[in-house]
C-alpha cells in the first residue's frame, strides 16, 4: 500500500513539474475560478431580476427567492458549477494532447516510465483538477451560505452537503471522458472539436433516437443526471418537482464509466506505437 502511495506521489510530482510551470495552465485555471466565482455571486440577483420582469403582468405574484441559504446552497451551486465543466475538459484535452504534440510521451516512456504509469499520471492529473474545483465549490458555497442564511444554525449546514462529493464525481468522470477523447485522437484541434461535437450534438441526437430508458445511460447524460435541477419556490408554484437527492444508480454508473474510460485508454495505449 505504502509503495503504491509513493509511486502515485512520484507521478503527481512529475506532472506538477510538467504543468506547474506552464503559464497557460495557470491562466486557464485562474480564468475558470474567476468565471465560476463571478457567476456564483451574480446569479441570485440576476434570476430574481429576470423573474420579476417576467412576472410583471401576471396575476400571481412571483416570490423572490434565495439561492444562497443553507442547506439548498450546496445543491444550487453544485448544479450551477456543473455548467462549467466543459471548460475544465478543455484544459485536460489541451494538456494531454500536448504530450503527443511535443512527443514528450515518447521521451517519458524512453526514460523509463511505463505506458500504464503515464496513463496513471494523467488520471491523477484529472483527479487533482476535480479535487481543486470541488474545494473551490465547497469554500464558495460555504461562504455564500454563511453570509446569506437567516437564523443560521449549525444543523442547517450539513444536510445536502453530499452534493459536494457528487459534484466531484461528476467532474472527475466527465474529465476522464475528455481524457479518453484526447488519448484516442491525439491531435489537439481534432480532440477539442470532436469532443465538443459529441457533447453538444452527437449524444443529444443519439438520445432522441433511442428509448429514454437507454438514453439515460449515455455517458454525458448519466454524468449530468447526477445532480438534478434544483427546485426553487417558482418551480414548486408550477408543480414541477425535481430530485433533491443523488441516486445510487447514477453514482454507480459514473464509477463504472470512469473505470471503463481508463480501461479503454489503457488497452489502446498498451500495444500502440508512440
Amino acid at each position, binding site marked *: 500500500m505504502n509503495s503504491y502511495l509513493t509511486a502515485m506521489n512520484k507521478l503527481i510530482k512529475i506532472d506538477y513539474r510538467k504543468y506547474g510551470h*506552464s503559464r497557460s495552465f495557470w491562466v486557464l485555471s485562474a480564468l475558470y475560478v474567476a468565471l465560476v466565482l463571478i457567476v456564483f455571486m451574480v446569479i441570485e440577483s440576476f434570476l430574481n431580476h429576470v423573474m420579476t420582469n417576467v412576472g410583471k403582468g401576471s396575476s400571481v405574484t412571483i416570490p423572490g427567492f434565495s439561492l444562497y441559504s443553507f442547506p439548498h446552497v450546496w445543491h444550487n451551486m453544485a448544479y450551477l458549477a456543473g455548467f462549467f465543466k466543459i471548460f475544465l475538459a478543455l484544459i485536460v484535452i489541451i494538456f494531454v494532447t500536448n504530450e503527443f504534440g511535443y512527443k514528450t510521451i515518447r521521451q517519458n516512456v524512453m526514460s523509463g516510465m511505463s505506458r500504464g504509469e503515464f496513463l496513471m499520471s494523467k488520471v491523477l492529473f484529472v483527479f487533482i483538477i476535480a479535487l481543486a474545483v470541488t474545494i473551490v465549490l465547497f469554500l464558495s458555497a460555504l461562504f455564500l451560505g454563511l453570509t446569506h442564511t437567516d437564523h443560521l444554525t449549525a444543523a442547517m449546514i450539513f444536510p445536502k452537503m453530499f452534493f459536494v462529493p457528487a459534484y466531484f464525481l461528476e467532474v472527475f468522470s466527465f474529465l476522464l471522458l475528455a481524457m479518453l477523447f484526447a488519448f484516442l485522437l491525439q491531435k489537439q484541434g481534432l480532440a477539442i472539436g470532436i469532443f465538443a461535437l459529441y457533447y453538444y450534438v452527437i449524444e443529444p441526437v443519439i438520445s432522441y433516437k433511442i428509448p429514454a430508458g437507454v438514453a439515460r445511460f449515455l455517458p454525458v447524460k448519466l454524468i449530468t443526471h447526477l445532480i438534478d435541477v434544483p427546485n426553487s419556490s417558482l418551480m414548486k408554484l408550477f408543480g414541477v418537482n425535481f430530485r433533491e437527492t443523488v441516486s445510487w444508480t447514477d453514482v454507480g454508473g459514473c464509477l463504472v464509466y470512469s473505470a471503463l474510460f481508463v480501461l479503454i485508454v489503457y488497452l489502446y495505449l498498451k500495444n500502440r506505437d508512440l
Partner: protein
Amino acid sequence: MAKVCIIVVDNGFFVIIVIYFYLFRPINIKKTILQNEILEIRDVSKSYGRLKALDSLSLTVERGSVFGILGPNGSGKTTTLGILLDIIKPDRGNYFWFGKKPDATIRKRIGALLEQPLFYPYLTAVQNLKIIADIRGVRYEEIDEVLDMVRLSDRKWYKCNSFSFGMKQRLAIAAAMLGKPEVLILDEPTNGLDPKGIADIRNLIVKVAKMGFTIILASHLLDEVEKVCTHVLVLEKGKKRYAGPVNEALGNSFIIEVAAPDLLSLQSALKQIPQVKTITRQNTMFVLNVHDDLTPDLLNRKLSDQGIYLTHLAVRNKSLEKYFLELLSDGHE
C-alpha cells in the same frame, strides 16, 4: 529375477547419470555468457502497411562495445532503436536487455536519444531534465554534471523554445546521460551540430565508451561510425547485410597516398610497379590500391630508385564508406 534386477540396476544407473548431469550442468559458464550480452534481438520484424521496415533482424550486442548501426535513409535504423525502447511495438520476435524481458525499470538503465530532441518548450533546460530525473529516480545534482558535459551550463535557465536545434540536440544527449546509464542509445547524435559540437560529441562517445559503457549509435555518417565504433550492423531495407567487428568488415586492406612535384612522371613510374593494383588521381595526389606485400618503405625505395622523390606518403585504412558502398551495391547486382 536376475533379469529384472539388471533392468532395475540399469535404470537406476541411468537415473543417477541424469541427476549427475542435471546437478553439474554447465550453468556458471552460461551465466557469464549472458552477462556479457547486453542486448539480444531475436527475429524481430515490423511492417508499416505493405512496407517492411524491419525484416527478421537478429543481433547480439556485447558489453563495452560501441555498436554502430549503418544504413541509408529508411533502412530501419530508427525503427530498430524505437523497438528497443518500447516506443514501437514489433509485429514479431522479441528482444532481451541484460538477458531479461524488457520492462520500464530496465529502460532506466538505458539512456536514449531517438530521432529528434523532445522537450516541453515552455520549460527551461533544468526543468525539463528534472522531469527525466524524477522518472529515472536520479538525484538533481547530476543535472549540472550532464549539462556541463554538453556545454549548456550557461543556458540552463533558458526555456527550451529559445534553443537552436543544435542546443536541443545537446540537451537531449545530456538527458540520455542522466543517471549514468549502462547503455547509451544515440540516433544520429551529431545531426544539426556545428563542427565543434560534432567533435565534442565524438570525444564524449569515445570517453564514455572508455569508461566501459556500451553505446549503440545509429548514423548515416560513415566516417563518424568509423571513428568511434568497434562493431557495426549494416541495414538495408530492413534486412541485415552485415553484423560484426568493424576491423573484420574492413579486413587489413589499406590504401596508400602519394604525391610528387612532377605528377606525370610519378604516374608512369607507379604503372611499372606490379604490386600497384589501381591508381586514382585525387587533386594533387594519387590514391593507390596495392597488394599487401607492398609496404610504404618498399614503394618509397622503388620510386627513389627511379629518381622520384615524394612530397607526400601516407597509409590509410580502407574507409568504412568504401566498404559500405561496396556492400550495398553488391545487393543490387
